[in-house]
């Protein structure tokens, strides 16, 4: 295990693509093992692709790109604008609502942050919002997409940890909505103090709100359909992913009349690259995943933790804190792939619900994408809006506090997470 870890970290520090660092690290196991032939390593890569739940990844990635091209994003933006732009910190509220709505149609935090930095960022700055505040709101609100279904991270967690993806999807809804509320409050408090308001904006009349909602009906309907079709295992998440692709094409083509062949080609093209880079990491992790199980790493970690700590709460606490620290340095996909098989058996042993843990884990590791030193969402937004990192860090504090408060609440009130999946799946 030492050699594997060493190879992984050395390659990573030298700037190797994560997929190759993970692949070579896993390959080290087969090279150095006396019992395992190298061809089994190849076998493990191929085996990963034989999981039906994983097919949900390409479908939801493609659906996300198609929905961008279908005018769904635009309409959600207009709806969010009409609904909350009048509040204190109006555009910040729009960003938070938009992330929540986008969470229901696409599954990636970084994509959401990049889209909002492009659409909302310049507007916020020209309205007099500080660059740090604008960037912090946009980056941190994208965290909402990590728990609202369909979340690519939850699909991976469910696949690696052998947890029902349908249940995870249901479990993410309430935490996602609560995160929206917590972030909106934080944005409101800061904006109130600084008098960030959109000039000559008025509270929308119920009629105006209804018109905007009607314009966005196909977009708003999608998350509802998603939940209804997964409920009780009627369709599997992968099947729903295929429906989502077809839905996005029909809405863009027939209802919104903006999706032409060129737009479809663009969406496929971008989706193909995204799928390639996500899936190569997942395929390559097949070898290291096997090594982790073969070398009984989960049992050893469980032994150490259970031997030195007695209270289950403390064990879960220690695991969550180590996830947070790991999240500061690593991308969430890698952490989910590498740490889920290690931690899920441990928390199950102390009687913690794996669905509950999955939601906490996803929130915590994705949060790392918004923090220094390595945060993809943070760098993307700050890069696009020209925000100095110090300013981002200072302005993001109220939002981090809101997220921490939420995580603590979710940790100690499991019902918030587990109520919906238990209701829908029994």
């Amino acid at each position, binding site marked *: 295990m030492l050699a594997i870890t060493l190879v992984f970290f050395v*390659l*990573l*520090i*030298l*700037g*190797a*693509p*994560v*997929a*190759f*660092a993970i692949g*070579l690290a896993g*390959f080290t196991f087969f090279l150095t093992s006396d019992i395992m032939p*190298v*061809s089994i*390593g*190849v*076998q493990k*890569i*191929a085996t990963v*692709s*034989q999981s*039906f739940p*994983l*097919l949900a990844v*390409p*479908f939801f990635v493609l659906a996300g790109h198609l929905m961008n091209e279908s005018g769904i994003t635009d309409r959600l933006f207009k709806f969010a604008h009409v609904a909350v732009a009048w509040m204190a910190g109006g555009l910040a509220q729009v960003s938070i609502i938009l992330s929540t709505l986008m969470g229901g149609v696409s599954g990636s935090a*970084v994509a959401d942050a*990049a889209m909002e930095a492009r659409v909302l960022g310049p507007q916020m700055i020209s309205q007099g919002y500080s660059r740090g505040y604008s960037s912090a709101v946009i980056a941190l609100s994208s965290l909402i997409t990590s728990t609202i279904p369909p979340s690519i991270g939850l699909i991976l967690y469910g696949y690696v940890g052998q947890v029902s993806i349908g249940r995870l999807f249901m479990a993410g809804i309430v935490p996602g909505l609560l995160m929206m509320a917590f972030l909106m409050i934080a944005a409101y408090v800061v904006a109130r103090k600084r008098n960030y308001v959109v000039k000559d904006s008025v509270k929308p009349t119920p009629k105006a709100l209804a018109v905007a909602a009607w314009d966005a009906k196909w977009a708003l309907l999608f998350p509802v359909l998603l939940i209804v079709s997964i409920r009780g295992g009627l*369709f*599997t998440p*992968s*099947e729903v*992913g*295929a*429906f989502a*692709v*077809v839905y996005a094409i029909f809405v863009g083509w027939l209802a919104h009349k903006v999706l032409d062949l060129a737009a479809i*080609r*663009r969406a*496929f*093209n*971008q*989706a*193909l*690259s*995204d*799928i*390639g*880079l996500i*899936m*190569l*990491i997942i*395929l390559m992790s097949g070898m290291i995943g096997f090594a982790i199980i073969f070398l009984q790493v989960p049992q050893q970690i469980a032994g150490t933790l259970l031997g030195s700590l007695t209270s289950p709460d403390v064990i879960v606490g220690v695991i969550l804190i180590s996830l947070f620290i790991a999240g500061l340095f690593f*991308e969430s996909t890698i952490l989910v792939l590498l740490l889920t098989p290690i931690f899920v058996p441990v928390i199950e042993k102390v009687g913690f619900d794996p669905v509950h843990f999955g939601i906490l884990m996803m929130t915590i590791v994705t949060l790392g994408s918004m923090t220094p030193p*390595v945060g*993809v969402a943070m760098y*993307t937004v700050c*890069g*696009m809006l020209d925000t100095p990192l110090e300013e981002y860090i200072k302005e993001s504090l109220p939002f981090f506090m809101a997220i921490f408060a939420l995580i603590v609440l979710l940790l100690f009130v499991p019902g918030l997470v587990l109520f919906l999946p238990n209701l829908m799946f029994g």
Partner: protein
Amino acid sequence: MSRIFAKLEIIAGCVLLAVITVLVFIAAVMRFVGYPLIWSVDLAQLLFIWLCFFGAAKAMRERSHLGVDFLTRLLPPGMRLVLETLMSLLFAAFFLVLAWEGYKLTMLNKERLFGDSGLSYAWVTIAVPAGCLLLLGSMISNLIEAWRGRITDGRYIYSRAMSPVEAGEIEDI
């Protein structure tokens, strides 16, 4: 030559993505109305790994595979290119060993069938060597481009100084 090949790769990947979606969509609809099609999902599952590798090769050409660059970013461009070249040699060796072992493995269990579809499982395992060769091809083509002095726009062999999002660039067929 390499450009034509890249285009073919993209077309193959997009076609696979469309076919897999349609297969799973039809299977779900048929199952719902009471006529399940087993082969449809099986075929989608078999094609999935090919989709992954075509996508991975495309991402390699675009230099968009994620890596941690907070240290390499500090290097002068020339040094970074040398480092990436050395790393690429290591990756090339890795791809070649995987390809060779994958080929042997495929030949060993040609007989194994895939689900109930009657298709050979070899179609899945052979995707690993084929995919490694595709990745190797894109990497070599990037290496040649980088050494021909194109690193001025921030592109190295498998990484780039600016992310595609920041550059606001969209690759088209």
